[in-house]
């Protein structure tokens, strides 16, 4: 049986499979299953039963999210599906692999998702910098259109779907689903108030589902090989496989599809080859820049959403950033704060004014001008920019590495103050 449904067709030493090659490896079989009589309700049930959780960061159950979309006679005629392909979380490089490596998988998954919620229009909200992904996806959309998998009355089901490519122009906040919807409508990408949730009132006020690329890429496997097969993939609690990445000073940084539930140690030490010679592991952000630092003592925690939450962080995107003992943790966190300060949309005050303040303090630390009062101000910001204090999750995301870093690397912060310099610099 297939054990790597997300990457089974990916070989980066050659161009991605064309539609014939993709179909030869069970591609688009799910659509034929739908055409033989799977109703949208049937597909929704399968996805709910699969236990698939969103792979974009929040880990919300996909089937449950879809179930909030109005259906039946009284539902609005126009609904939308959006593939969130605006990958920009620092240290995250997984959706790029899927789109460059096997674009038809995303297209097939989008057709399944759109059929389930009965959306006749779908947008791919692609990061503008992903020029190779854009070319690969445009070609795949064209091939799928020619084959009758897109367009009118797909495989005689009476279901119509157009997939439209939207390339963005670079803002992290567009990854937030309501900000993304504003961007697609041609507005500044400020997040919207929730409720109403996009599932009920999203793009142009119509019911809209926004799913991450990797989430959508799970769907063809679930329909083609079945829920039991999907449940057999995991080594832990959460179902399915996931793309896991490691970057930083490890021997072989990379991105791999692995079952959920493996120990973190296996990812860092076996797949990423462990630390480069002469370096020790100091800590790591388990799922991109908005997650709390974990320490070497957490290496035996398993790669499950709940298990990582238990030790105070998040699995989020599953792409780890590794901190070694010769790299300054204060500098690393400062780099993240610069990113978050730059990418704040500017809509709400704590985020717009708080993050640049934090960023400036880190610059002062770096320049040997930090003091004890600054340290207190950083601690205060962990509280004041935390969950529930800001309009969206951007600033709370920034407090994750900040708060955990202040706790775990206290001595390094204090050294910057007492020595009035960064001792990691040569």
């Amino acid at each position, binding site marked *: 049986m297939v054990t790597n449904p997300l990457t089974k067709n990916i070989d980066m030493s050659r161009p991605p499979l064309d539609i014939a090659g993709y179909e030869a490896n069970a591609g688009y079989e799910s659509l034929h299953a739908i055409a033989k009589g799977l109703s949208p309700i049937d597909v929704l049930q399968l996805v709910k039963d699969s236990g698939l959780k969103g792979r974009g960061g929040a880990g919300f159950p996909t089937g449950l999210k879809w179930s909030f979309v109005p259906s039946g006679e009284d539902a609005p005629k126009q609904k939308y599906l959006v593939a969130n392909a605006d990958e920009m979380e620092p240290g*995250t490089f997984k959706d790029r692999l899927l789109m460059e490596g096997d674009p038809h998988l995303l297209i097939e998954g989008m057709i399944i998702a759109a059929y389930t919620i009965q959306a006749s229009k779908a947008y791919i909200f692609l990061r503008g910098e992903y020029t190779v992904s854009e070319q690969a996806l445009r070609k795949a959309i064209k091939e799928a259109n020619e084959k009758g998998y897109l367009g009118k009355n797909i495989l005689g089901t009476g279901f119509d779907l157009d997939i439209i490519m939207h390339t963005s122009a670079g803002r992290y906040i567009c990854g937030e689903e309501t900000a993304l919807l504003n961007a697609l409508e041609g507005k500044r990408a400020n997040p919207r108030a929730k409720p109403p949730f996009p599932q009920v009132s999203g793009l142009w006020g119509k019911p809209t589902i926004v799913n991450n690329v990797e989430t959508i890429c799970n769907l063809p496997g679930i329909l083609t090989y079945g829920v039991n097969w999907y449940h057999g993939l995991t080594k832990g609690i959460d179902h399915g496989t996931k793309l896991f990445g490691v970057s930083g000073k490890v021997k072989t940084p990379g991105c791999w599809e692995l079952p959920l539930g493996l120990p973190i140690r296996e990812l860092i030490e076996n797949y990423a080859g462990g630390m480069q010679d002469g370096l020790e592991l100091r800590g790591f952000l388990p799922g991109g820049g908005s997650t709390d630092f974990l320490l070497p003592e957490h290496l035996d925690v398993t790669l499950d959403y709940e298990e990582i939450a238990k030790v105070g962080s998040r699995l989020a995107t599953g792409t780890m950033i590794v901190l070694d003992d010769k790299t300054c943790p204060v*500098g690393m966190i400062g*780099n993240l704060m610069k990113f978050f300060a730059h990418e704040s949309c500017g809509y709400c005050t704590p985020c717009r004014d708080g993050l640049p303040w934090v960023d400036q303090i880190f610059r002062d630390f770096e320049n040997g001008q930090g003091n004890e009062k600054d340290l207190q101000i950083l601690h205060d910001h962990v509280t004041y920019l935390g969950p529930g204090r800001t309009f969206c999750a951007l600033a709370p995301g920034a407090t994750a590495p900040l708060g955990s870093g202040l706790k775990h690397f206290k001595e390094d912060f204090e050294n910057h103050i007492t020595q009035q310099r960064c001792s990691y610099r040569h």
Partner: protein
Amino acid sequence: MSQQLIASTAKKARALSASEIAEIEHEMTLYPDKKAVGLEALKIVQKHEGWVSDESLLAIAKYLDIPIADLEGVATFFNLVYREQVGKNVILFCDSVSCWIMGCEGIKGHISKQLAIDYGETTADGEFTLIPVPCLGDCDRAPVMMVGPDLHRNLTPDKIDAIISDYKNKQN
């Protein structure tokens, strides 16, 4: 750069070219209203002109019937819409966390030295503009940067020299 609002200047919309109009019209078929095409139109104009001048922005606002301030709000919001003239090749240099750990600051210093420009500046010959960009999503091959549409990975000072000379030769 002037902070004056465009609407308060005497600047006038330029005429959009036939190919710009054709591309904007195509985008208009993909969205239910004209306003949604604003960003796409800015990108189309930038593809043709290299950047978005006030005259271009006014032209788009007029063509799509979008208030000037709204369109300017969008144009200034996005990192990749250039409201100042840029060089023939825009270098988008990733300065986010994985690239930072892998030593991107030293690579950036090398670029700045070789081209005699800092972030936000263009070389005297108009060949290169250097801009920092948030995480390019290729972290296992850090440090990385883009030059125009092309991604360059595992950067070293030697690689930077080769890349710069390749692009310079391409122009000639």
